[in-house]
C-alpha cells in the first residue's frame, strides 16, 4: 500500500517536487561554477540567495506532502477509508526522504564530485549533510505539519514557534550576560556540538512521538502539547552545563596523557600588560565593548606544550574569593592560545584577560582576594605540512582542502582561497616562504574551538570555504616583509595543519591578588 499511496502523492505533488529539486540543483550548479575563489559577483549573489530559497522550498514541500492527507480536521475523505495508518506514515516518510532529501543529496553529491573530491568522499559528505538536515529541518517540519490542518495553520504555528525560540534565546542571552557568561557556555563553543547532538536526539524523539500520536491515535491536542514540551526541552538543552559537555569531549580525546606536562602558572615577574599606545590603553582598559566594563591582565606562563603544538583555551572560568569568603565573584576570562612551531623556548608567557563589570572592578580592585581560574584546554599537534607555489598555486591537500592562490588587486597581499568538503580544518598556520633562501613572513594562524565530529553548520551546502590573506607589501612603507613582492616567483605558501589531540582541564590558583595591580598600563 505504501507504493500505491506514494504514486497518488506523486500525481498531486510532482510539480512542487520538481520546482524545489530544481532550486537545489541550480544552487549546486551555481556553487560549482563559482569555483574556489568565488569572485563572480552575480554568481556569488545567486549562491547566497538560492540555498536559502531551496531550503524554504523544502520546508514548504515537507508540509505540503504531510497535508495531502492531513491528520487534524474532520472533513478529509481518507479518514473514513480503510487506509492503514502505518502504511500512510511510512509512505509520508518515504516520500519526504525521496522528494525532499533526495534532491539535496543529489545536489551535494554533484558538488563534491564536480569539485574533484572523489565519489566516495562526496557520497559520505552528501549523506552527512542530508542526515543532518533531515533531523534538524525535515523532521521538525514533518511534526509541525502533522499537527496542523493546512499550510496557513502550519505557517502561523511555525511563526509562533520562531517567535518563542527568538524570545527564549533573548532571555538566555540576558541571563548569561547577567551572570558574566556562566549560565550556559556550551552554545557557540567548541563543545557546542554536544548540545546540538542532544537537540538532534530530542528532535528525533519528538518527531517520532508526535507522528505516532497523530497517525495512530489522532490526538492533536496531545501532539501539540508534545511539540511545545519538546520545544521547551530543546531550549533547556541550550544551557547544557559546560563541565559536563567538556567531560564528554575529554572522553573522546585521541590520547589521554599527551598533555600531562602542560602547566599554566601565575607569572608576576612578567609585570603589567603594556598597551601599545594611549588609544590602545583606553581600549584595553574598557574591553568588552562596554563603557561600564573593566579589564585586568593576569600574567601567566605556559610550559610543557611540546614542539609543533598549539594550546588553546576553550574556557577560563574565574572565581574571586575573599579570604573569609564573605564575597565571591564568578565570571569568565577571555580565551587565548599559545603556539610553539618548531623547537624553541619551553615556556610561553601570555596575559589572561579578564573582563569584569565596572561595579565589580570598583568593589574588588583594592581587596586582597584569592583568584582561581579553571581552564578547559585543548592541545593541538601538527598533523600535516604542505607547500604550494605562491603564484597561481592550485593544490589539493588531504585534511586541508583544495586551494588556489592569487595576488590581490592592490598588489599588497597573496590571497589564499580554499574549499573543503565537509568540515574544514579547525587549526592551521599559513605563511609565505622563499623556497630558495628559507626566509619567512610572519605566519597567519587561525585556530577555532570547534570539535564537532561533523560539519555542524551544513547550510548552505556540504562545502566549506575559507582562506586568508598573506601580506607581502605595506603600502604605507612602515612594515618590511622578508618575502616581498619581488620574491613571489620563488616563494611558496606553507600550510601547517594542526589537529586537536587532547582536551584537559587545569586549575590555576593565585592565593592573593589585587585587581588594581594588573590593570593595563
Amino acid at each position, binding site marked *: *500500500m505504501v507504493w*500505491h499511496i506514494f504514486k*497518488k502523492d506523486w*500525481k*498531486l505533488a510532482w510539480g512542487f517536487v520538481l520546482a524545489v529539486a530544481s532550486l537545489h540543483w541550480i544552487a549546486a550548479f551555481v556553487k560549482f561554477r563559482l569555483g574556489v575563489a568565488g569572485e563572480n559577483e552575480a554568481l556569488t549573489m545567486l549562491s547566497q540567495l538560492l540555498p536559502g530559497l531551496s531550503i524554504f522550498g523544502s520546508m514548504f514541500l515537507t508540509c505540503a506532502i504531510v497535508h*495531502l492527507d492531513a491528520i487534524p*480536521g*474532520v*472533513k*478529509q*475523505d481518507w*479518514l*473514513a*477509508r*480503510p*487506509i*492503514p495508518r502505518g502504511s500512510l506514515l511510512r509512505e509520508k516518510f518515504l516520500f519526504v526522504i525521496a522528494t525532499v532529501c533526495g534532491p539535496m543529496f543529489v545536489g551535494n553529491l554533484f558538488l563534491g564530485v564536480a569539485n574533484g573530491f572523489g565519489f566516495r568522499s562526496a557520497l559520505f559528505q552528501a549523506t552527512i549533510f542530508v542526515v543532518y538536515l533531515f533531523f534538524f529541518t525535515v523532521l521538525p517540519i514533518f511534526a509541525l505539519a502533522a499537527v496542523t490542518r493546512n499550510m496557513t495553520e502550519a505557517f502561523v504555528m511555525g511563526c509562533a514557534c520562531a517567535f518563542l525560540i527568538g524570545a527564549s534565546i533573548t532571555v538566555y542571552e540576558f541571563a548569561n550576560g547577567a551572570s558574566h557568561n556562566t549560565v550556559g557556555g556550551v552554545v557557540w563553543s567548541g563543545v557546542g556540538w554536544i548540545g546540538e547532538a542532544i537537540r538532534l536526539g530530542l528532535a528525533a524523539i519528538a518527531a517520532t512521538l508526535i507522528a505516532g500520536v497523530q497517525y495512530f491515535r*489522532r490526538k492533536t491536542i496531545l501532539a501539540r502539547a508534545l511539540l511545545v514540551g519538546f520545544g521547551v526541552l530543546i531550549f533547556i538543552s541550550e544551557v547544557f552545563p559546560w563541565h559536563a559537555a567538556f567531560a564528554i569531549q575529554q572522553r573522546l580525546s585521541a590520547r589521554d596523557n599527551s598533555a600531562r606536562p602542560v602547566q599554566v602558572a601565575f607569572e608576576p615577574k612578567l609585570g603589567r600588560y603594556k598597551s601599545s599606545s594611549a588609544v590602545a590603553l583606553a581600549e584595553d582598559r574598557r574591553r568588552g565593548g562596554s563603557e561600564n566594563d573593566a579589564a585586568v591582565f593576569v600574567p601567566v606562563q605556559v610550559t610543557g606544550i611540546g614542539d609543533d603544538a598549539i594550546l588553546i583555551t576553550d574556557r577560563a572560568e574565574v572565581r574571586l574569593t575573599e579570604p573569609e569568603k564573605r564575597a565571591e565573584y564568578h565570571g569568565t576570562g577571555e580565551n587565548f592560545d599559545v603556539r610553539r612551531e618548531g623547537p624553541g623556548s619551553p615556556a610561553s608567557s601570555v596575559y589572561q584577560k579578564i573582563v569584569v563589570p565596572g561595579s565589580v572592578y570598583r568593589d574588588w580592585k583594592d581587596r586582597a582576594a584569592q583568584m582561581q581560574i579553571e581552564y578547559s584546554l585543548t592541545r593541538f599537534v601538527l598533523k600535516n605540512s604542505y607547500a604550494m607555489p605562491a603564484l597561481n598555486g592550485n593544490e589539493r591537500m588531504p585534511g586541508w582542502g583544495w586551494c588556489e592562490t592569487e595576488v590581490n588587486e592592490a598588489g599588497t597581499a597573496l590571497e589564499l582561497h580554499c574549499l573543503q568538503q565537509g568540515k574544514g580544518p579547525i587549526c592551521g598556520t599559513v605563511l609565505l616562504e622563499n623556497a630558495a633562501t628559507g626566509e619567512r613572513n610572519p605566519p597567519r594562524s587561525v585556530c577555532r574551538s570547534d570539535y564537532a565530529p561533523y560539519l555542524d553548520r551544513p547550510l548552505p551546502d556540504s562545502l566549506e570555504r575559507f582562506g586568508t590573506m598573506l601580506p607581502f607589501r605595506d603600502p604605507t612603507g612602515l612594515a618590511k616583509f622578508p618575502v616581498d613582492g619581488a620574491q613571489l616567483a620563488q616563494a611558496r605558501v606553507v600550510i601547517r595543519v594542526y589537529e586537536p589531540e587532547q582536551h584537559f582541564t587545569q586549575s590555576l590558583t593565585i592565593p592573593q591578588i589585587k585587581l588594581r595591580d594588573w590593570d593595563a598600563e
Partner: protein
Amino acid sequence: MIRVTDLHKKFGRFEALRGLNFEVPEGSAFALIGANGAGKTTTIKVLMNILEPSHGSIEVLGVDSRRLSPKELAQIGYVSENQEMPSRLTVAEYVAYLRPFYGTWDRELERTIAKQLRLPVERRIGDLSHGMRMKMALLCALPYRPKLLVLDEPFSGLDPLVRDEFMEGLLNQAGEMTVLLSSHELGEIDGVATHVAFLDEGKLLFQESMSELMGRFREVHVTLEQAAMAPREAPKEWLQVRAMGNVLTFVDTRFDPSTLSEQIHSQIAGVKETVWQPMALRNVFTTLARAARDGQA
C-alpha cells in the same frame, strides 16, 4: 448493526450530544432527522471514528467506533456533503486510488454506477459541481458493496434532478445494506427511510419505524353542537388541541380507531361528528418538534 449508548460529545463547554441512545437494525434505512445544529453530523463523525466521544460509545458492526480498523472501514460506505477529496486528481484517478483498499471492489459495478450517475470521470475533482461531487462520493462508496452505508446530509444543496439521479443510484444498489442517513429535510427521507430518529439540540426525542410512526399519528376534527372549547385536561397523547367555531382539532399520537370515539365522548360533550385523517410526515415532525419544545413530548 449500530448501537449508540449514552453518547455525549462536548466541544469545549458546548455539549453537542447529550446522552443519545438508539439502535439501527440490520437491513434498515435509518434516518436521523433534526434541524441544523441538532447533532446529526456529530453523531455520524463519532460513528466513523472521525471524532471521539466525550462519554458513551457507538458500536458499529460489532466494534467500538474508537477501534474501527481498516477491516471494518472496508465494509462501510461514507458520503458526506462536505467531504474533502484531492481536488487535483480526476474522478477516475481517485477511484483507481481507492480500489486496492477494498478487497470486494467490483469494477463492473463501478462502471455501472458511474454510467448511471452520468459522472464525467476524466474531469478533475476540483472542477466538479457540488451535485457532481456528491454523486462522485456515492461512486466511491458503493462499488465494494458495503454492509453499512452512512450518508450525511446527502441531498443538501442538490437540485431536484440531481437528487433524483442520486437517489436512483442509491436505491438501485442499496440491496441488503443497512443505510444510515441524516437530513434536515423531511421530504428527502419520505419513501426512503424505514426507521427514523429525531434529534433536537443534541437530544434524541424519539426513534421509531416509519410504519409505526405514520400509523399512530392522526389529525382529528371533532364537530360539536355548540361552540368548541379545548378540554381542561386533554389526554397527553392529544397534541396541538385547537378550537375554532364549533370544531375542535387535535393530533392523536396514539391513534386507535376502536377507542378514539369513546375517549372523545368522555372528554367532550355534544359531539356531532368525528373525522380523522392520516398526516404527512412533515406535519408529524412539526407537531413533535413543537411538543418537544413545549415539554409535552
